[in-house]
């Protein structure tokens, strides 16, 4: 079965979405991530969407759900790399991803995660 890989980097999990996801693939990622957070006791999840050319309401909802479920499982989520055209479209669509922390790129996202963990 087709899957989005989840990499472990210390206490963080790293997900780079590089394919145009169909809905089932997005749902599988959501479940896989929850399972990996439990198994690894990860404290942070970084999702890189710099390769995604569109984010529609379904993928937007998946991102919000991941942020919500990881919070409940004691992990922080940071979404990084959103393309400007995608950001403009999402806002116009009516999705502002409340509760999802974002950073411009993976490096900034990592330091945001580290900062948050030190503070908490």
């Amino acid at each position, binding site marked *: 079965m087709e899957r989005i890989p989840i990499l472990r980097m210390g206490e963080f999990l790293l997900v780079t979405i590089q394919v*145009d*996801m*169909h*809905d*089932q693939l997005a749902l599988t990622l959501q479940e896989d991530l929850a399972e990996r957070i439990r198994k690894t006791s990860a404290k942070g999840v970084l999702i890189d969407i710099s390769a995604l*050319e*569109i*984010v*529609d*309401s*379904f993928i*937007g*909802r998946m991102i919000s759900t991941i942020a919500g479920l990881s919070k409940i499982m004691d992990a922080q989520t940071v979404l990084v790399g959103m*393309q*400007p*055209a*995608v950001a*403009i*479209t999402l806002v*116009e*669509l*009516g*999705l502002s991803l409340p509760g999802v922390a974002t950073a411009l790129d993976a490096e900034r996202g990592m330091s945001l995660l580290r900062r948050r963990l030190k503070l908490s």
Partner: protein
Amino acid sequence: MMTVPGVTRESGSQEVVVEQDVVIARQTVRKLSTQCGMRLVDMTKFITAASELARNTVIYGGGGQMEWDVLENGTRKGLRLRFRDDGPGIADLKLAMSDGWTSGNGLGLGLSGAKRLVDQFDIETAPGQGTRITIVKWA
């Protein structure tokens, strides 16, 4: 069907029946939008709108087709997409077009959101009559 100025240069259609077809529909719309010379932001908006409508066709319409026409009005090119299904149709269109309302488990942004992302939006539907939604974006 919605009338728009200009002439049709190229047309085609494809099935939108299973989830994977939504991805293929996005790819077709990307290819055609590029061909029309759409700017990146407009293209992204149009593909996103198409994605919402294609998903609706699969989930609520029980599958259908996406028809497309490349339009030309003078030197300006545009793209018209029509999503049609023979599903149950929409009884309360006003409600379905409002933000946050959903009959399924979505966010309720599909129809209203898609409308905001395009230049022209037209919907024909009635209970038992299926749904036909036409959208246009000019480059």
